[in-house]
């Protein structure tokens, strides 16, 4: 499972960085989204990867998973979602204002 998760994180981050460097607003938005997926997976994995373990205390649980990273990831997902929504709106606004979808736009006046 460790290999799978770490490969997935690496792949997501690599794709994210590639797309961010494309310097077109929509590519950058998708790149940032992929990057935040990778980061969220990483954060989730920081509590160690265990399967079939309870996150809450129960009398008949054999093993426990660390619930804190799960809470952290939830927070990070919510924040990331809000930020992405804002960025999409801003990208559309910038397209309207600047006339093209390059992140630097035209010289603009």
């Amino acid at each position: 499972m460790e290999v799978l998760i770490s490969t997935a994180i690496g792949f997501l981050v690599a794709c994210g960085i590639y797309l961010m460097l494309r310097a077109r607003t929509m590519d950058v938005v998708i790149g940032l989204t992929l990057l935040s997926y990778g980061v969220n997976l990483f954060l989730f994995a920081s509590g160690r990867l265990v399967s079939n373990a309870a996150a809450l205390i129960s009398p008949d649980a054999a093993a426990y998973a660390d619930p804190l990273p799960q809470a952290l990831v939830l927070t990070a997902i919510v924040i990331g979602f809000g930020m992405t929504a804002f960025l999409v709106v801003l990208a559309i606004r910038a397209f309207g204002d600047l006339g093209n979808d390059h992140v630097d736009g035209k010289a603009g006046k």
Partner: protein
Amino acid sequence: MGHWLIMPVLLPMAAAILMLLTAHMGRTVKRGISLLAMLGLVLVAVVLLNATLSGDYQVYAVGNWVAPFGIVLVLDRLSALMVLLTSVLALFSLLYACNGQDRDGRHFHVLFHMQLMGLNGAFLTGDLFNLFVFFEILLIASYGLLLHGGGPMRSRAGLHYVILNLAGSGLFLIAVGTLYGVLGTLNMADLAVKVAQANPEQLRLIHISALLLMVVFGLKAALLPLYFWLPNAYGVASAPVAALFAIMTKVGVYSIIRVFMLVFGIEAGALANLAQPWLLPLGLVTLALGAFGVLASRCLRKQVAYLVVVSVGTLIAGVGLLSVESMAASLYYLMHSTLITGGLFLLADIIVRQRGDVGSELRTGPTVTQPLLLSTMFFIGALAVVGLPPLSGFIGKLLLLQSAAQQPGVAWFWSVILIASFFALIALSRTGSTLFLKTDDTAITGVRMEKVSLFAVTALLLSSPLLAIYGDAVSGFTTATAEQLMQPMQYIEGVLGPQQAPTAAMTEGG
């Protein structure tokens, strides 16, 4: 202290929500609520600062969860100082905005107070992940504020700013995740304990995440090579927003001080003083490039924005010297530079409005409507920001230079700071003469500055003589703050209680 400690977070939040609910009731109601809440915040900040004078740490366990397990807010001298500084700066920015610029967007006051909530939370929190959350709160509010007023220039600068900060947030999370994965805690005091006791094989990962944190804070603070976004963003933001943003870079500086003095500070074992080899050179190069920027700017607003870069460079270099004296001097300089650059942003806006079509460009233009008043104010602001006697900039820089006298890097430190000040002096003299002396025959009349604007700008600029007159008391306080920062063990014991055997066994299992 009771619940006073969480008031700087709750009060702006309550005000923001109230203003959303009363959105239909018109601007006067909103301004009333906004200003009242702002005054309340200043009052709270004064009460908090007063509580730290004894040197105690005030700890507020949010939700009454005990320290390493729950999130705590911690009040020490540094956080109280930052909260007070924020609220004073914000009060005058808000006053200035109430004069008309808050009309440019519907939710200016709401965003403004959300930003204050994020700023105060970031200064008060004692938990690394909570710091991330407050960073995001202040950032998302700042995205809205930066775009306040609209226009292509703001869209473009806003897009860059948002993308950069989102990438920065990703790095922050990676650093936080690594630290948690290795040490099993995110409470800063607990982190400090655990870092000091870390195994040799854990050190490398901790080191990586510490440096990642420095990248993130460096991005917020606009430290080289991460400052290129700042002149554009601050240069196009509307004046009250830019003035408030003067404290935003200081959030990065604050975080660097907090994390690298406490968690990776002098008592951090193998990783002690981890940031020091980086901070001094990076600060000096930032300072030098900022000074070139000030000299090269062809736009008044951008020039002031570069002055922010200069102040950040000076501060970081001072922090990097790592002695009580230099830290105290840096904190003094921090107060001075925040208030003065804030005032200069507002002043620049007034000047730009009175120059008609020429606006912010630094070239021959019409005479402003109130040349005598504006030039006097510009003169005072420039004197203060360059650091000429008798104003606070001079005292701040003098204290910094003195504190460096016994340090190894003194030659570099002195020469860069003095030459940069000289550059700023040349640049601002040229700006002043372009704005007020090299005018053509036309004159702009009728665009007079309102009394409220005058009051706001004067109050911010007056902070400089005040800081100089009460220099003894202020530097006494900053010295006490610096001494407190140099004793991370006190912070740890203030938060976690007296330290005996390591608490590692309890938190390891999570």
